[in-house]
C-alpha cells in the first residue's frame, strides 16, 4: 500500500513536478476516486485552508497598523480580510530579502475564502457582551481600527494579539477539531466512495482529512524538519530558506512550504526539547491520509473508521495541548510583567516600557485561553476557572479591570484585585493548565523549580530516628 504511494510519487517525481517525495511528506497521495478519468495526479487539496492562513496573518498585521486617524479606512481593509474580498494582496507572509515568497495575492492560492464564515458560532463566555466567536472577532476588529498600533492602553488590550490568537482557535482549531476531524470523519458523512463534491477529483474522506490538515498550518515536509527550523520558517529567517524551499524552485510556496498558526506554536513548544507535538500531530495526519489512500476509493470499513478516529483523537488531544502550552507560557510572562509593574509602581519608577509588554503578553494569554474553549468540548470547571483567573482584561495600575461592555459597546471598568494578587492568579493558571492538559514543554514555568527541587528531596514516610 505504502509501495503504491511511493510508486506514484516516484512517477510524479520523475516527471519533474516535484524534486523528491517520501512517506513522511503530506503530498502526492494518488487519485483513488473510482471512475475518474481526468488528468489530476494527486488527490491532495487544501488550498482553501492555506488561503485562510494568509488572510489571518495579514489581518494580524493590519490590526497592529492603526495610526489613530485612519479608523474607517483601516476597518474596511481589515473586514475585507475577515469577511473576504476581491484581489487581496498578501500582506503577510510577504517576500523579503533572503526569503522569497511564491504568491503575493490571496487569489493565487484560492479564491472566495474568508474567516468570518468559518468562525466559532457558540457563545464566548470569556469575553464580555454575550457574543459568538465570529461576533467577538468582529468586535475586536472594530476596536482595533480605532487604536494606534492595535494598542489600547486605557483598557489594557493589544488587538493584534487578541485577534490573532483568538482567530487561531475560533476559526482554525474549531473548524479542524469540531468539524472536519469530528462529525465529518464518521461513516455516512462525506463517504470515501463518492467525490467530495460534484465534479471533484478527490473523495469525501480524502478531502475532509486534507482540510483538517490545512487548518493545522504545517509545511507538507514538516516531518523532515526539526522544531527550531519549522519555527524559523514562520519567522521567515533567511538561514532556513533552503530547508523551507522543499522543491528547490527558489521561492517558498505558501500552500506547501510555510509554517503557520498552531503548527508554529507546536514547533515553538517543541524546540525546548521536552515535547514532540509537531511530529506527533504531523505523523497522525500522514498515517490517517495513508489509510484513506489505501482504501483505494472504497467506502471505509468500520475497522478503518475506528483507526481513522484514533488518528483524529491523537491530533485533537495534542492540538489542544499545544494551545494549553502557549497559554501556560504567556501566563508565566504575565506573572513576571505584573510583578515588574507592581515593583515599578512601589518604587515610583516609570511604567512606560513595562505596560505595552504586559498588555501584549496578556493578549496572547487571553487569546489562547479563549481558543481552548472553542474546540467543541465543554471544558467544564477548568474553563470557568480560566475565565475567572484571567478576567475580561488585565488588572491595571489602579487595581481596576474591564468587567463588561455597556450598550454602546464601550468597556466598563471596576475595582478589582491588586497587581500582585493578579500575578498570583497567573500561577494558578499555570497550575490549572499543567494539571488538566498534562503539559510537558511548560515554558516560563514559574513554579517549575519548586517542583524539581521537591522531586530531588525525599518526601513522605521517614521513620529514621535518633
Amino acid at each position, binding site marked *: 500500500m505504502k509501495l503504491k504511494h511511493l510508486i506514484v510519487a516516484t512517477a510524479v517525481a520523475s516527471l519533474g513536478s516535484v524534486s523528491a517525495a517520501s512517506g513522511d511528506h503530506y503530498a502526492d497521495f494518488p487519485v483513488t476516486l473510482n471512475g475518474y478519468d481526468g488528468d489530476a495526479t494527486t488527490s491532495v487539496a487544501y488550498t482553501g485552508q492555506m488561503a485562510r492562513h494568509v488572510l489571518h496573518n495579514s489581518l494580524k498585521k493590519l490590526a497592529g497598523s492603526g495610526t489613530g486617524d485612519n479608523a474607517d479606512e483601516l476597518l474596511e481593509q481589515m473586514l475585507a480580510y475577515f469577511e473576504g474580498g476581491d484581489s487581496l494582496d498578501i500582506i503577510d507572509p510577504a517576500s523579503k530579502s533572503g526569503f522569497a515568497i511564491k504568491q503575493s495575492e490571496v487569489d493565487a492560492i484560492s479564491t472566495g475564502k474568508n474567516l468570518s464564515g468559518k468562525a466559532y458560532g457558540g457563545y464566548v463566555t470569556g469575553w464580555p457582551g454575550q457574543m459568538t466567536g465570529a461576533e467577538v472577532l468582529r468586535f475586536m476588529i472594530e476596536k482595533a481600527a480605532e487604536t494606534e498600533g492595535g494598542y489600547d492602553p486605557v483598557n489594557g488590550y493589544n488587538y493584534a494579539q487578541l485577534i490573532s490568537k483568538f482567530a487561531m482557535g475560533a476559526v482554525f482549531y474549531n473548524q479542524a477539531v469540531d468539524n472536519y476531524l469530528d462529525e465529518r470523519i464518521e461513516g455516512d458523512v462525506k463517504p470515501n466512495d463518492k467525490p467530495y463534491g460534484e465534479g471533484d477529483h478527490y473523495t469525501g474522506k480524502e478531502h475532509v482529512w486534507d482540510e483538517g490538515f490545512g487548518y493545522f498550518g504545517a509545511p507538507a515536509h514538516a516531518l523532515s524538519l526539526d522544531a527550531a527550523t519549522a519555527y524559523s520558517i514562520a519567522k521567515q529567517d533567511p538561514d532556513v530558506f533552503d530547508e523551507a524551499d522543499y522543491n528547490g524552485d527558489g521561492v517558498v510556496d505558501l500552500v506547501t512550504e510555510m509554517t503557520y498558526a498552531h503548527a508554529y506554536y507546536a514547533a515553538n513548544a517543541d524546540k525546548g526539547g521536552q515535547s514532540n507535538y509537531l511530529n506527533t500531530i504531523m505523523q497522525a495526519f500522514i498515517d490517517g491520509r495513508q489509510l484513506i489512500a489505501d482504501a483505494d476509493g472504497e467506502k471505509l470499513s468500520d475497522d478503518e473508521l475506528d483507526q481513522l478516529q484514533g488518528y483524529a483523537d491523537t491530533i485533537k488531544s495534542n492540538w489542544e495541548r499545544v494551545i494549553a502550552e502557549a497559554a501556560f507560557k504567556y501566563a508565566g510572562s504575565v506573572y513576571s510583567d505584573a*510583578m515588574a509593574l*507592581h*515593583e515599578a509602581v*512601589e*518604587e515610583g519608577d516609570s511604567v512606560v516600557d513595562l505596560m505595552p509588554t504586559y498588555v501584549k503578553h496578556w493578549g496572547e494569554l487571553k487569546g489562547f485561553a479563549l481558543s481552548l474553549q472553542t474546540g467543541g468540548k465543554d471544558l467544564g470547571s477548568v474553563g470557568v476557572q480560566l475565565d475567572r483567573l484571567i478576567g475580561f482584561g488585565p488588572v491595571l495600575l489602579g487595581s481596576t479591570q474591564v468587567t463588561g461592555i455597556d450598550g454602546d459597546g464601550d468597556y466598563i471598568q471596576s475595582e478589582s484585585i491588586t497587581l*500582585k494578587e493578579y*500575578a*498570583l492568579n497567573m*500561577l494558578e493558571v499555570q497550575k490549572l493548565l499543567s494539571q488538566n492538559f498534562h503539559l510537558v514543554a511548560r515554558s516560563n514555568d514559574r*513554579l*517549575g*523549580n*519548586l*517542583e524539581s*527541587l*521537591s522531586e*530531588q*528531596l*525525599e*518526601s*513522605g*514516610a*521517614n*521513620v*529514621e*530516628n*535518633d
Partner: protein
Amino acid sequence: MPGFNDVLSSLTTTFLDPSKRVFVGYLFLAAVIGALVWMAQGRSWRHYPRAVLSRRIWWSPSARADYQILVINQILFLFLAPWLLSHLTLATWLFEQLHRWIDTRPSVGLGWPDWSIPILFTLSLFLLDDFARFWIHRLMHRVPWLWAFHQVHHSARVLTPLTVLRTHPIEGVLFSLRSAVVNGVCIGGFVFFFDSRVDLVLVVGSNVFVFLFNLAGSNLRHTHCYLRYPAWLERWLISPAQHQVHHSAEPRHFDRNFGAVLAIWDRLYGSLLVSEPTAPKRFGVTRRRRPGEQKLVTLYGSPFLQAARVIRRWVSVRTTTIKQVNKEGRAHG
C-alpha cells in the same frame, strides 16, 4: 492499593538507596570503622567478626523486634503515604504567601557566583533539618504523651544499625511532618528570593552534608562500638558514643544529647554531655527488663494507653482546678 511488590521494593530501597541511613555501603563503612576502633582498643582483629556478627546481638529479642517493626512500618507507611503532607504543597503555599507578606519580590544575590546559591541552599537545608530533628527529639522527651511514643525507640536493649528504624508510627508521622515543613520552607523561601538559580548539591542522590555524615560512620551510633571523639569535637559533632549515652538506662544520662549530627543545638539548650571513658552499662528505658517489653503488642499498643493516661490525668487536673476556681469565686462573691 499497594501490593506485595511495593512492599518488597520499598524494603530494597531502604538498603540500596544511598539517601537512606542503612544503605549497604554505609553499613559496610561503619563495619570498617568499627574494626579500626576495635583494634585501637588493643584487641585482635581475629575476634572482631565474631563480636560484630554475634548471635547475642542480632538474634536478641530486642533486635528481632527491630526487624519486625522495620517490616510493619514499611507496609503501614505505604498506605499512609498518600495522606502525608507533601513538601511541594507546603513550598508552593509558602512561595505564594511570601508574595503577600513581602512587598516586592526582591532579586537577591544577583552579583554572586553561580555556585554560591546551591551551596547556600544545601547548607541551609542541612542546618534547618538538623535543628528541627534536635528540636522535635527534645520535645519528644519533654512532653509526656510524646515520650510515650518515643520510648519505643529507647526500649531497645541491644543497639543494631536497624534500631534507627525502630520508631512508633505516630512518631513516624511527626517525622514526615517535620521533613515537609523543613523542605517546604527551604524550597519555597529560596525560590522566592533566588528563583531559578536555586539548586541542590547532591552526592549520590542525597544532600552532600548528610552524605558526609553517613560516610563518617553514622551507623555506629546504634551499635555497641563505643567510638568517642575528642572532647572538643564532641562539642561540635555528636559522636556515636554520645548517642549511646542518650540510649543509656542510667538516670543521670537521661535527656542528654538530643542532636543528630551537630552538637551545637544541645549546647545551646544545655543538654550536651560529652562521652565518659567507659560505655554505658545498659541501654533501655528502665534498668530492669520488664516482662513482654519486646513484644509487638507492647511496642505498638502501650504508647497509646500511656498517652491516653497522660491526657486523662491532665484533663482531670484541669477540671479540678476549674471547680476549685469556681468554688473560690462563689466564696469571694
